[in-house]
């Protein structure tokens, strides 16, 4: 089954929900409104997309938004396994809150925790929203946002250390 066939299956499942299609190389994304995210994800799961491969968040600072996409695929349906179909939404950077999809896909539980600490995006009703990888003082800075800039430390010390 090609990506086009998987796309048709997903489009059929999402009928009735307003969506926008974003195409990429090797995957396809359906972007819905925040309110419809849980419903759309549940329908995709019923259509056979049983696990999430990657919870991908991109910070578009110039457009003042986060794009949150759950890239799902299938294990139990061997045809669907060949395609990666994303379902996602966009939220403003000032109020990054989305409903959790843990109750739809248990496989996103740790990935939502990871996004929470790296972007400061809050997943409402997540059963266990704690830090996963980072220490609290680093997580505060929300390191994967574009306004966190990595400063390169000089390798050679130019002045002898004082004190």
């Amino acid at each position, binding site marked *: 089954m090609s990506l086009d066939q998987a796309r048709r299956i997903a489009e059929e499942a999402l009928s009735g929900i307003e969506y926008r299609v974003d195409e*990429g190389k090797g995957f396809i994304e359906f972007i819905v409104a925040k309110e419809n995210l849980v419903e759309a994800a549940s329908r995709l799961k019923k259509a056979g997309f049983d696990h999430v491969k990657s919870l991908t968040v991109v910070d578009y600072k110039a457009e003042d938004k986060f794009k949150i996409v759950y890239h799902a695929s299938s294990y139990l349906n061997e045809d669907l396994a060949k395609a990666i179909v994303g379902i996602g939404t966009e939220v403003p950077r000032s109020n990054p809150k989305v409903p959790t999809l843990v109750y739809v896909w248990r496989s996103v539980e740790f990935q939502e925790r990871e996004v929470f600490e790296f972007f400061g995006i809050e997943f409402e009703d997540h059963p266990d929203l704690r830090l996963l990888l980072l220490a609290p003082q680093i997580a505060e800075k929300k390191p994967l946002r574009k306004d966190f800039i990595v400063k390169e430390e000089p390798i050679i010390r130019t002045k002898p250390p004082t004190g």
Partner: protein
Amino acid sequence: MSVWVYGEQKSELGLEGTITRKLEEDLYEVFIGPQHPGSGHMRIIIRIDGDIIVEADPDMGYVHRTMEKLSEGREWIKNVPLFERMAIHDACNVTVSYVMALERILGIEPPPRAKYLRTLLCEINRIAAHLYGFGIFGVFIGHSTMYMWSFADREVMVELAEKLTGARLTHSYPIPGGARRDMPQDFPQAARKAVRYFRRRLDEYRKIFLDNPVTRKRLEGVGIIPKKIAAELGVVGPVARASGIKYDARLAEPYDAYDEVEFEVPVYEEGDALARAWVKFEEIKQSLRIIEQAVDWLEKHPREAPIHERFWAKAPPLWKKVFEAEGRVKLLPLMANLKLPPGRAMARSETARGEIVYYVESDGKTTPYRVRIVSPSARNAIVFKYIAPGYKVMDLPTIYGSIDYFPPEADR
């Protein structure tokens, strides 16, 4: 630490077998790690009732290096040596999908020779990583012979990789549009000798480890993941295949030369630690088959530059002269300032521990706008939380070793 009430989760998910009973008072909290519970640093906080685990909380991040952020400040090619630090003994498998994503954005395909060279190194890496996993697994359950044997035999594959790439580990072999260099003239003989050695050796592994009554008592029926739950938790690689899921990124979306070589994907139904060990064992056999086929193909076909002609056309005269005289290729200087057109791509490859997924976004500069990596161990970590409860404390090393959890790769 928050408290989960497992009974409620059960009713929502219907995941039988993941929950033992509701939390009660009088539980002991035991911190396992972070000083080397296994192959690196991670901690599992467990709560036990007597000898039975009732709750497990994997606490990761001790070897986290913010690779996703670091990659945004580095040129495209420099991310290859960065990402392979996730699993240095599995370097080619881990980076090949990143390179594939770049190739998709560039709209190029590597030449067939490069595809076979990459496949060859991927399989050499897979065997080395499985042996590493077996070694750690062996020492976890007190089987030091397996540890000694597999670490010694891993050396054969590491040296083979050195012969091919010039580096024992961290080969940085796949590059956008091809492979970094071709194999030396005497490589096929060395590869065939190694394959012959392993065929003989694997039988001994089976006798001393997999068919050993002591090992079987420790592994059989431990850490069972039923097929439905494995799909729900999204586990990958040998863990999924030991639970009856027929999924392998090499089959789902064939890359490099995997659609041309013959191999089988071993799948077991039992879903326990022993089945996971068998999957890895059988995968080594299949990798040996692929190595033989790749070496045969490479020997039969005339040498060509293992890099896309679009890049090779811009190679300096010295590069071409060396290639014509000795058949050697080196990394092209233009790679340093490689610019990608704006675009987004995803790619996946099957590493020894399971599938790795890259999402790459370019905005037309010499550095990525965003790279998202989901490594296999990061996806398998959820097993500790949902599968370990209900087993004894001494079964935890078995579960840990059998899913081949590798902290540097999980933490990224």
